[in-house]
């Protein structure tokens, strides 16, 4: 079996938002929609203060609360753990966004452009099937699937790896198969120090964070 996931090393993240932009470019996201972002966080009070960059995205939970609540079956989970939205089946009711504890879903009512009229680039990357429906990080499943079909290894070969991971300038975002004990992600969490966001929600996220 395969279970795709990520380990994000927060200690390495410099908050440059390259992953954010790479994701928007890869998926042709309209203005105002970002499937991932890096939160710039100040924690504590002087003198015990720390600045933290926290890359946020869909956690591709093993027990995704967004999937069972979906009334149309548009929110789905693949056998390899990737959670995605089947755009043609989605009514855009927003229920999955209410069920997600990680603020990871985005309803695109209309593709806003950056200017008064769509640029050539925006016209070329327009995805009208995503209007009025829920959208979210897909772990770049098209890249992963296409890469695998060509014999590449996601997480090792850049052509088969999610764009955020490929684009990260600090090697802070690592993608791979948690069911493969020899994969880099498995080794990064092997010592048990990696953390999950809000494990108390019981969603079993597939994105781990390495902190101090």
């Amino acid at each position, binding site marked *: 079996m395969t279970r795709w996931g990520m380990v994000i090393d927060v200690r390495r993240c410099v908050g440059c938002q390259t992953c954010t932009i790479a994701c928007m470019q890869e998926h042709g996201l309209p203005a105002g929609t970002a499937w991932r972002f890096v939160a710039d966080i100040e924690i504590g009070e002087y003198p015990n203060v720390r600045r933290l960059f926290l890359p946020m995205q869909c956690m591709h939970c093993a027990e995704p609360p967004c999937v069972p609540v979906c009334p149309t079956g548009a929110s789905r989970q693949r056998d390899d753990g990737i959670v995605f939205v089947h755009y043609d089946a*989605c*009514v855009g009711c927003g229920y999955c966004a209410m069920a997600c504890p990680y603020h990871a879903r985005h309803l695109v009512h209309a593709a806003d452009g950056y200017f008064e009229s769509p640029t050539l680039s925006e016209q070329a990357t327009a995805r009208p099937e995503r209007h009025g429906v829920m959208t979210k990080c897909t772990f770049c499943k098209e890249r992963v699937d296409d890469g695998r079909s060509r014999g590449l290894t996601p997480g090792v070969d850049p052509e088969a790896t999610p764009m955020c991971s490929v684009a990260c300038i600090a090697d802070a975002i690592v993608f791979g198969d948690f069911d493969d004990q020899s994969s880099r992600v498995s080794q990064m969490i092997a010592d048990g120090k990696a953390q999950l966001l809000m494990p108390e929600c019981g969603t079993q996220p597939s994105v781990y964070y390495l902190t101090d």
Partner: protein
Amino acid sequence: MATMPQPAPVELIPAEPQRLWGTPAVANFFLGGLGAGLYIAAALAARFGPAPSVRIASWLGPALVLVGFAAVATESGRPMRGARVLWRIRTSWMSRELWLGGAFVLLAAADLVFPLALHRVQASVAAALLALAQGFIVRRSRGVTAWDVPVMPVVFLASALVSGAGLYFMIELSLGRLPEAVVLPAVVGLLAAGLVVWLRYLAWSGEPAFLEAVRALRDARAARLIIGGGYLAPIALVVLARVVPAAAGPALYLAGALMLAGQLYAKTLVILKAGMLRPITLGALRLDRRLP
């Protein structure tokens, strides 16, 4: 310099208001509950004596439910795909809501055309399940701290019954009738139970995120309008109607209007104000890194 580690979990991204469900969702939750509650109240009252309002409830209740469905459909991104919402009855309370709403409409229509006790019981059960289903929709919203509480379906059922009983009062009085005497203590009991459920909901959790989310429900204005105006004042007015028969008409009409308004305000606040997305937290984060 030595520093103390921060106690876990650390809030990294604060709660923020949900922006997808607005007034149309409130309309669906309120009108659905109102329609269901009206039918149940009228059907129960009809067991204790003549209640012409049950005929009205047989079409008005379903009509309110359908208006609620239509309202919420305008909020979806692709309303023309609305029929697909029926597909996931096995897992989604939104699908179940639609099925139960449809069953309620059909059974209430059957009661209207063929007024049999069996139809009335079946329609009442469907109405109660519809109100519960709406509560479960909200309860399964794991991303919203103030909604993801086990008591939420009971809150919605109680709200439906209170608002429905209020509308039942107003219809009976508009028809020139006073509700049966036995109905009044039952409504007082219902209001008292509804108040207990509401207070239990407000105190459901001591978790800071929950308390922050329900702050608007616990402030003085909400207490005045929901607890005072929506529960205590109607209780007083119903008691007044029982003690002073001459004042019964106006007192019960006002009580009904207050019960309606109180539940509308409560549901509006629950959806629009308490609908705060869960804050993002991380456990065991140390703050003493890089400090000298």
